[in-house]
C-alpha cells in the first residue's frame, strides 16, 4: 500500500492507483473531461491538474495519469490549479460554446466566455480523444484516429473518407462528452443519405462523422431490430460464435 496526502487528508491506496482515483476515495472532487474509467488515462484536457510535491517544489500534473507515490503531497484546489483549469475552460468554451458539458463546468467554476476570443462555431469536438480511444481500447476496431496536428487536428476515418472499418456500434457517440458526434437511426421504409455518400434504406444507422451508414439486423423471430449487421458479425467472429447466433435477439433466445 502507498500512503499519500491529498488536501491534508492522508490515505492509503494500492500501488498503481492514480491520484484522481485516490481523491475520489476521499470524496474530493476533481473536474475531468478526457478521462473515462473504461479508458487508459490520457492527460489531454488538463482540467484535472493538481499540484504534487514530495520534498520542495510543487509540480502541476494531470491527476488522471499521475500514479500515487509514497509520501506524495497533493493539493487539488490551489490558485495555481484554478488558473490552469480556468484557462482550459475558457479556451474550450471559445472553441465549442454550445457544448452543454462545458457550459455546466463553466458555471460550476465561475468561468465566463471571454469576449476577447472569437468563438469557433463549426465543431463541438474538443479533441479529448475519448472516441478514438474507446474505438481502439474497448471496441478494438480502430475505425477512427486523429488526423493532422495542432489546432487543425481532427478526429476522422482514414483520409477523411467513409470508414471501411466502422461497425456503427455507437460507442463513440455515447462516450463523446460534448455531443460532437451525430448518429441517426433510419427507420424501416425511410431513406437517408450518408454524408458525401450514397442513400441508405432503413432500418439503418448513420454515423455522420465517419461517413458510414450500416443496415440494422432484425430478429428472425420477433422482428425487433438487434444491432448493425457489421457489429454483430464483428462480435460473432471475435467470440467465435455459430454463424446463426445473432439471427434471433437475446430476448427471444431466452
Amino acid at each position: 500500500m502507498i500512503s499519500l496526502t491529498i488536501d491534508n487528508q492522508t490515505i492509503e491506496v494500492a500501488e498503481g492507483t492514480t491520484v484522481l482515483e485516490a481523491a475520489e476515495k476521499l470524496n474530493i472532487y476533481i473536474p475531468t473531461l478526457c478521462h473515462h474509467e473504461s479508458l487508459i488515462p490520457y492527460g489531454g484536457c488538463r482540467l484535472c491538474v493538481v499540484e504534487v510535491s514530495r520534498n520542495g517544489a510543487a509540480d502541476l500534473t494531470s491527476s488522471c495519469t499521475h500514479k500515487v507515490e509514497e509520501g506524495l503531497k497533493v493539493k487539488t484546489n490551489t490558485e495555481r490549479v484554478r488558473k490552469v483549469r480556468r484557462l482550459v475552460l475558457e479556451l474550450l468554451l471559445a472553441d465549442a460554446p454550445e457544448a452543454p458539458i462545458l457550459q455546466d463546468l463553466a458555471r460550476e467554476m465561475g468561468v465566463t466566455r471571454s469576449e476577447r476570443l472569437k468563438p469557433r462555431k463549426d465543431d463541438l469536438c474538443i479533441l479529448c480523444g475519448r472516441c478514438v480511444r474507446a474505438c481502439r481500447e474497448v471496441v478494438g476496431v480502430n475505425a477512427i484516429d486523429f488526423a493532422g496536428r495542432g489546432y487543425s487536428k481532427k478526429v476522422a476515418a482514414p483520409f477523411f473518407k467513409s470508414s471501411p472499418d466502422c461497425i456503427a456500434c455507437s460507442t463513440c457517440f455515447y462516450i463523446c462528452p460534448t455531443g460532437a458526434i451525430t448518429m441517426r437511426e433510419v427507420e424501416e421504409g425511410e431513406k437517408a443519405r450518408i454524408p458525401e455518400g450514397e442513400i441508405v434504406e432503413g432500418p439503418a444507422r448513420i454515423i455522420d462523422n465517419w461517413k458510414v451508414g450500416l443496415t440494422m439486423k432484425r430478429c428472425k423471430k420477433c422482428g425487433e431490430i438487434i444491432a448493425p449487421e457489421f457489429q454483430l458479425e464483428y462480435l460473432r467472429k471475435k467470440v467465435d460464435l455459430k454463424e446463426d447466433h445473432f439471427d434471433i435477439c437475446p430476448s427471444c433466445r431466452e
Partner: protein
Amino acid sequence: MKRREEINSLKNLERLKEEGMNSLFPSRTKIMVGMATCGKAAGAGEVWQVLNKEVKKRKIDALVVKTGCIGLCQHEPLVDILKPGYPRITYDRVTPEKVGELLDGLVKGKFKKGIMARIDQEEFLLDDTSRRYNKGKIPAYLASVSPYKKLPFYKKQMRIALRNCGFIDPENIAEYVAKGGYFSLAQVLKGRKPEKVISQIKSSKLRGRGGAGFSTGLKWEICRNADGEERYLICNADEGDPGAYMDRSILEGDPHSILEGMLIGGFAIGASQGCIYVREEYPLAIERLEIALNQVRGEGLLGKNILDSGFDFEIEICQGAGAFVCGEETALIQSIEGNWGEPKPRPPFPAISGFRGKPTVINNVETWSNVPAIMARGAKWFSGIGTSKSKGTKVFSLVGKVCNIGLVEVPMGITLKDIIYGIGGGVPNGRSFKAVQTGGPSGGCIPKDLIDLPVDFDQLKKAGSIMGSGGMIVMDDRTCMVDVAKYFLSFLEEESCGKCVPCRVGIRRMREILEDITSGRGEEGDIEYLQQMAEAVKDGSLCGLGKTAPNPVLATIRYFRDEYEAHIKEKRCPAGVCKPLITYSIDAENCTGCGACQRVCPQEAITGKKKKPHQILIDKCIKCGACFEVCKFDAIVT
C-alpha cells in the same frame, strides 16, 4: 588465445590509425571541399564536380576529398588545399569559375589569391597534441595570411563536440581513428566497470545538450539501476528549430563521434540496442550515418563481441517524418514504436520506462559527441571548462542579422557580446543590435541591455530564455518584437501535436491576439491578457513544447513592452515592420534623389527627378518595404 585476439583488435585500431594519419598528412596534394548541407546549399556540389573534372583533365597529382562543416557557413563554399611542405590553405566563396585559377596557383606553387586563412597544424584534442602540416618554415607569401585560429570567428571558440568537423573526411573511419577516435571505447571495454564510466560522466558534470540540461551521468545511472533486463539507448537527432543546425553538422561532419559516444553509453547502462532517431529531411546526415555504421560493423566495432570484450551492441537508424514535437522524448519514443507522435505525461521518465516500456536513455547528438572526449581527457578536464553549473562547451548556430553566420562552439560562460560581436562580427549594414533569440522558437528574446550576460543554462533561464538546443538568432533595430513573437507562435501553433488543450488552443489564441495587435486591432488589456494566458499555458501544458511555447511572448513583453503599447495604443509599429500599421513616405530633407528607391519599387510608386527629393504615391504603394531596405540615407520613413 583470448589475449591474442584482444591484441588483434587493438592492432586493428592501430592499423586504422596509421592509415588515417597517412590520409591526414598525405604525401600528395589533398584538396578538401566542405560538403555539409550548408556548403552544398552555397554551391559546393558544383565546385566539387568541376574540381574533380579539372584535376583529372590537367593530370594534377591530387586527391579530392569531402569534409564536413568547419563552421564559417557565411564564407562557403570552402575549399582547402594541403600540399606537402605547405600549411593547409583555406579558400572561401569558391565558385566553379574560380576553380581553374585555384588549380593554376596550385600547379605553379604559389596560390595566393582568395585565401581566407591558413591552418598550420592538425589538432588532436583527444590526445591533447597537435602536429604541423609542414615541417619547415611557413613560405614568406603565406606569412601575412591569418592562421585560422586567429580569425575573430575562431579566436574565442573551443571545439569539443565539433572537434573533427571540417578536418576529417566524414566518410573515412581511418581519419576518425587517427584523431583518437574509438580509443576511448577500446579503453572502456578493456576492463573498466560500467559504473566507473557512469561516475566519470557524472563527475564531468555534462548536462544534456538537447535543451533541458539534465545531468547526463545521472540519467545513465537511473537507467542502469532501473528494474528490467533489457535496456535501450537512443540518439535524439530530431533537430527542428528554425535556423538551427548544430546536430546536422555533427552528423554530417563527424558521424563516428556519435556512434562512439553511443557505444560507450550502451556499455555503461547495459544496453545492447541503440537507435538514432533522425528526421527524414536530413538525407545527407542519414547517408553519412549509414556509411559510418557499415564501417564500424566491418571493423568489428559494432555487433557481437566488440573488440573481443564480450560486449554486444547494435545501432539502427529510425527516420522521423519531421514533426517538431517528436524531439520531445516521450513523443519520440511513440514515433519509434510506430505510434502517433504524441507526448505522454512524465513520470514515468524514459530512463525508468521508455521504449517498449523498458529503461531507455535518450541523449541528444551533441551530448553523445562529447562523451568520447570526456572519456579520453577525463572528467576533471571537462569540468574545468565553463561555469559553476554548466560545464564544457555549447554549439550554437549563429544566424540572423550578424556578419559571420555560422556554427560556433564556445565554452559555457562566454558573454553574448563575445559571441555576437567577437565571433559574429556584429550586425551588418550599419544597423544596430536589438535583441537575440536563444533556445529556438520556444526560447526568449534577450535585449541589448543584457549583452554582457554570460551564456549558460541558468543565466539564460534567469533572463527569461532557455539554452535550448543551441539556436541563436540575432535581430537588428529593424525587427519588430511583436512580429517576432507572432512568428514563433505561428511555428509552434503548427507544430503542437494538439493533444493537450493549453498548448493546442492556447498557442493558437495567443497567436490570434498577436495577429490583431500587429494589424492594428489590438485592444486595451491585451498585454495583461496575453501574460495571464501565457503563464497558464506554461504551467498547464503536458510536455516541454507547450511548457516553453509562451516564452517568446513573455520575454518580448518583459523587455519590449513599449513596442506592444505602441502597436495597441498608437497603432504604430516602431520598427516599421507590421504592414497594416505603416505608411511609407520620403523625408525630403534626407533624400538625395539618388533614385535607388525608384529602381527597386515594383509598383512604380515612386516619382521624382534625379537629385531632387522623391515622393511615394500612397495609392500605388503595396508596402513591400523594398525602398526602405535600399535607401542609404534613412530618407524613407514609416
